[in-house]
């Protein structure tokens, strides 16, 4: 096991109280595995991704356990955490248009990044490694003399991927890496990510709201709702045999191109306020299968077949 989060809580401190953006999440990633993390906006998936690197505002409250290669990350000093960032856990951001410093040439960007982790590296050496990794992502190495704004959106995301790969991390967190790109470029970037993940033997946590993307890429998918992981399943199981009502409704609301079915489906209601989440199951107010107990007690996570699901529907079956 390369990465493990156990009972992870990440709360934002606000004047009104704690916003429970990530609440009791447990998740593990094996070596070479891709884990998809899906959910709608505001469910805490990006918080989880950034929380792993501890780059959230300093007032954020963490508890539980976060381990990379059996090294505990919560509670270690900032200086040790800096050595983890980039080197052991890399991150690819959502918007490539603004995630590269506009006043640095690409080669300088790579040099600075490499130097952070290998202070004695020479510019010559850095340039060689930059050229190599740029070639891998499909950018001519000569273009490293240019600035990021001279690249298109897709190219910039390639540069960002290269910037993450150059440090050869164990785990890459890709936070909606293709959301701001067009469909064709999306597919190219996703394929590239997948190939490089294999080649560099990395693990990946793919955060996205696009169920189609994770289906192809991920070995295992975790569905998040309002700070909880409500279902954790193998990709196939999740698509063909969804267990949690939320997953079921989420899958039904994917728009399709069938001419006889043009109506856009959605889940009525809206996600709960994470400042004061419902006492019981967080999905209960929107759930069509709601029972009495759902609103009173948080459901336990139970195993049904190969799937882990956090729902009262299955607990009774077990009993």
């Amino acid at each position, binding site marked *: 096991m390369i990465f493990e989060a156990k009972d992870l809580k990440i709360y934002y401190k606000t004047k009104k109280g704690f916003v429970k953006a990530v609440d009791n999440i447990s998740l593990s990633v094996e070596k070479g595995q891709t884990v998809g993390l899906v959910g709608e906006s505001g469910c805490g998936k990006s918080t989880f991704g*950034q929380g792993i*690197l501890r*780059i959230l505002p300093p007032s954020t409250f963490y508890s539980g356990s976060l381990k990379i290669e059996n090294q505990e990350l919560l509670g270690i000093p900032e200086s040790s955490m*800096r*050595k*983890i*960032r*980039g*080197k052991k856990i*890399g*991150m690819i*951001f*959502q*918007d490539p248009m*603004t*995630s*590269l*410093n*506009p*006043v*640095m040439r690409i080669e300088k960007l790579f040099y*600075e*990044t490499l130097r*952070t*982790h290998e202070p004695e590296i020479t510019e010559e050496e850095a340039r060689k490694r930059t050229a190599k990794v740029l070639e891998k992502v499909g950018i001519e190495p000569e273009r490293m*003399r*240019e600035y990021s704004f001279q690249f298109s959106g897709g190219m910039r995301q390639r540069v*960002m991927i290269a*910037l*993450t790969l150059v*440090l050869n991390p164990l785990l890459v967190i890709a936070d909606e890496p293709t959301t701001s790109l067009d469909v064709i470029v999306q597919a190219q970037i996703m394929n590239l990510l997948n190939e490089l993940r294999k080649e560099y033997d990395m693990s990946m946590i793919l955060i996205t709201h696009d169920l189609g993307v994770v289906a192809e890429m991920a070995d295992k998918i975790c569905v998040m709702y309002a700070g909880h992981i409500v279902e954790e399943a193998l990709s196939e199981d999740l698509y063909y045999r969804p267990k949690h009502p939320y997953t079921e409704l989420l899958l039904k609301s994917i728009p399709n191109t069938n001419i006889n079915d043009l109506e856009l489906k959605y889940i009525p209601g809206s996600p709960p306020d994470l400042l004061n989440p419902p006492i019981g199951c967080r999905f209960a107010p929107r759930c069509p299968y709601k029972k009495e107990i759902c609103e009173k007690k948080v459901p336990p996570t139970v195993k049904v077949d190969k799937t882990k699901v956090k729902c009262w529907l299955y607990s009774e079956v077990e009993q």
Partner: protein
Amino acid sequence: MRKKFISERLGEFISDLFGTGTGWLTFIGAMILIFYIVLAIFSPQIAPYNPTERVGRSLTAPNDQFIFGTDNLGRDVLSRVIYGARIALMIAFIAVAIAAGVGVPLGLISGFLGGPLDRVLTLIMDAIYSFPGLILAIAIAAVLGPGVINIAISIAVVYTPTYFKVIRNQVSSVKSELYVEAAKALGAKNREILMKYIFPNVLPSIVVVLSMNLADAIMTEAGLSFLGLGIAPPTPDWGFDLSNGQRFVLSKAWWGLLFPGIAIITVVLGFSMFSEGLNELINPTIRERR
């Protein structure tokens, strides 16, 4: 490839600039500045007389020998105006250097760290900012006494908050940019983030404030020495000559007042025109709007 790209852009920029009235203004501003800077550097070679010695009769009207006339002590006004450029530019540059040297780092730190330190620094800077500039400069100059450095310091105090505020606000917006976040995620230290990711991105606004402040600093310096708080008397200084000259206007000696006055006006105008153009050069959005 790359060179061609840059030269193309430069050519486009120049033709853009001169296609509009502001282009010419910038050009004229730059010319005026170069003129005064040359005057300041080579004043011993250019000035016809020693500016602090009696060289003719008191209050001689402009003639072939003394193009700008002489003052009440028989000193050549032209030479004093030429040497005056030295003092004016020197004090202005030192003052602005001190103001930027203090204001910019404080603004960077304050904007980046935020929190209580930011609150306190902002409060102090706002307090300084709330004084009328010349009044504050007078108060500080009166305490410190005359001298080039002292005058420069009293002017610098007035302008430090400008740098602080501009930089602080820019930093607090730039620090939430994704590339700063990305640098953090790649393990960069705070100092690296501040110096390599944030500072270069706020630099353009400093340059513009810098050139505008130079104009202001020259006015403030002239104001201080006009009131007798500037450089000690025999040294040629525009502000002092202005106040000295206005005593003899009633004796119809207009030249003692007019020429230092013209010098102050043109140099300030030059700086203003130049900074306006610089602002356009650095902020393409302003250019687009015209």
